[in-house]
């Protein structure tokens, strides 16, 4: 449950110049790098579609510190890297928190198109190839306290961006993510109405989209966004069961961010979901660019 929320946390807490799902690129031979802290917590979650709390968890908190970097290879091609350290804890009950380095994400972002649209602004189209690989040997079988799902992921993303000369912008981005099977330490598991006599779990694909609107002028940028993730398969958490790595984790989330002179502060909130926590996330970080 955590991991998927984290993914969005990261993409919603961008480098000033660019994120995986925005319509911007780093200028050629420019390196942007920085660190973002995220505090993500929920006290209610969806057990399948049933919204509930759980006094044996109380509030589930996930904190992460993510190193991010973006580099402009050319004016049309950027590469992006991210690596988070994640720590989880439950405010009530006996369950042990977990912590560790989660997944390293590498992305290649290519601008297909940048063209004036009417006399009001510029339309850009981007494609992004993203790969995520677990960067440590963490345990995915202790949700919601696991720090991630331990699957390798590969995404193809398409982004359309309109930047008005007055400073307003509108961004739409959608991605399909393929995920590799996950290997558990145990020889069998039950999910989606069936006992599997295997230590391997097939992971359903994920579709997500984000729509962002905002204002950018000088070193100030204020985007607000609506995003949705849909997992294309997987079972629900059963009544009074723990979450499972291949659950159908869906959510709709709204968020906002203020970026000024390389410093960013953001907040987001899950408004609806399935097999995920109703998380509220605060982010804070900084990014500085260097010409090389």
């Amino acid at each position: 449950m955590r991991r998927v929320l984290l993914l969005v946390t990261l993409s919603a807490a961008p480098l000033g110049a660019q994120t995986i799902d925005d319509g911007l690129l780093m200028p050629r031979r420019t390196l942007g790098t920085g660190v973002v802290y995220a505090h993500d917590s929920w006290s209610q979650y969806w057990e399948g579609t049933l919204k509930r709390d759980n006094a044996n968890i109380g509030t589930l908190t996930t904190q992460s510190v993510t190193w991010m970097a973006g580099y402009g290879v050319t004016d049309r091609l950027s590469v992006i890297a991210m690596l988070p350290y994640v720590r989880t804890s439950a405010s009530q009950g006996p369950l042990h928190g977990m912590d560790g380095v989660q997944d390293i994400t590498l992305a290649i972002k290519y601008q297909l198109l940048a063209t004036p649209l009417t006399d009001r602004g510029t339309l850009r189209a981007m494609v992004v190839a993203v790969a995520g690989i677990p960067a440590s040997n963490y345990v995915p079988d202790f949700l919601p306290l696991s720090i991630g799902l331990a699957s390798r992921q590969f995404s193809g993303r398409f982004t359309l961006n309109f930047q008005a000369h007055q400073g307003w912008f509108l961004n739409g981005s959608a991605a399909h993510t393929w995920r590799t099977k996950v290997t558990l330490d145990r020889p069998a598991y039950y999910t989606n109405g069936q006992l599997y006599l295997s230590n391997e779990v097939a992971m359903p694909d994920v579709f997500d989209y984000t729509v962002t609107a905002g204002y950018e002028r000088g070193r100030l940028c204020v985007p607000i966004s609506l995003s949705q993730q849909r997992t294309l398969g997987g079972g629900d958490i059963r009544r009074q069961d723990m979450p499972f790595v291949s659950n159908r984790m869906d959510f709709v989330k709204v968020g906002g961010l203020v970026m000024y002179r390389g410093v960013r502060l953001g907040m987001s909130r899950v408004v609806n979901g399935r097999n995920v926590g109703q998380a509220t996330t605060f982010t804070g970080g900084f990014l500085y660019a260097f010409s090389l």
Partner: protein
Amino acid sequence: MVLSLAVAACDNTITFSELLPPLEAASLDSSAGSWQMIVLSGPTQFTVAAPAADTSAAYTAELAAIKATQSKLTAAQRQVIDYWAAGGVLRWNQIVRGLVARYNLPPAPRSDGTYPVPDPENPFADPQFPFANPPYASRAYSYVAVAQYEALKTAWYWKYQYHRASPARLDNTIQALMPIGDLPAYPSEDAVLSGVTVEMLRVLFPAAVEEITQRAAEQRNAALWSGKAAASDIAAGLALGKSVAAVLVARAGGDGMRTAGGNPALWQALKDSAVARGEIPWISQESPPRPPMLPNFGLVQAWLMTPTEVTAERPLAPPSTSSPQMQQEVAEVKHTVDHLSGAQLAIAYKWNDGAGTYAPPGHWNDIAAEYIRDAQMSEVRAARAFALLNMAMHDAAVGCWGVKFLYFNPRPVQLDPSIKTVIGLPNFPAYPSGHSTYSASAAVVLSYLFPPAAADFEAMKEEASISRLYGAIHYRSDIERGKEHGARIGGYAVRFGQGDGAN
């Protein structure tokens, strides 16, 4: 790199660990009709009437019907045949493990902080019935295994009274669509298994009856369509299976399970008793506090032990909750869980077997199944192996639960709330460790059945047991005493096996 990952991302096919080839039994076990019974008085407690002669018009018509069916078999029918060709005992064991995993979920609390009790009269409600927790699961596995074993020994007896061959053996125009050997077909062992198992599971997992009934019908169809059994072989087997099940169902109705959950007065008395002995009593660490799991399960009727023997085999008392030894053991738990290596963490999850899984006894059935498969045991010998294993684990549960609720000892988390667990905390007293008791009883029985693998079973038992310390849910003395207790209980099943005539 991105491209290579794209290729790797396509690799989402999982490998199954327990594939079952068609069963070609290493031995007919033609003397199994004389092997010792457990619950039945003997193989003639139920009489199977003589079949019609091979040359009778009725039987000839049955053979013609098989030929007609085989001439237009669908792909779906062939799949059913292939599935059940693996052997009914192994297949049903897999199915029961799935049922336990499906039903092994505790009731959710009500908004007033109380918990509803699963109701066998209303099994489809929330909470579903049963809550197939570890003691319930051990009992369910054992009833299915014993019922199958008793029914198959009876079937073997009558098979060798009548010596009627399989249709595919009698008539060379009938194909053998699964391995069909020299075992007499009347009564059909597949039909015996379908009848005895469905009646047993109807009681143990009533909400799954529709699915179970369908599986059982498919098993009989597989025997018929494959040329292994004729309609009269199947009818006789089905009736015999149901008759034997009735004996086991009656036993289950009076074995003490119905009152194993206790009541608020009992729960309070257990606490008062511990306080009166000067000990800190177990308190549920769940929120809201949940009544303890099956406090009277220790009074459930054992398979191979008398109540006196159950009491006599118990370990001594745990260290006092106020003793220096207990303080040391609490400190060991805390130090262990806060300094777990990756390998230790993996062991904790490998043997977690908590809510939503097939439970610790299911894990040992999972282990046993591959040895039974590889030994190519006949159906009746496979049933014996699962019966010995599951009787031992059931009796281990009875013995262990009796001790748990005699001492009502708190979990590490209760004595030191700064201890956090990396697996779910079971909602019943600590001493002794159930997983250690189950595992030791299972390892003793499996080592008897498969001597060359004894060292492997011993290593698995050790790993399963110590996993509870890594998980921070047990003290070391829970584990050590549990292993010793379980091994003693497993000895009863081994001694039964040594004298049952099957060797």
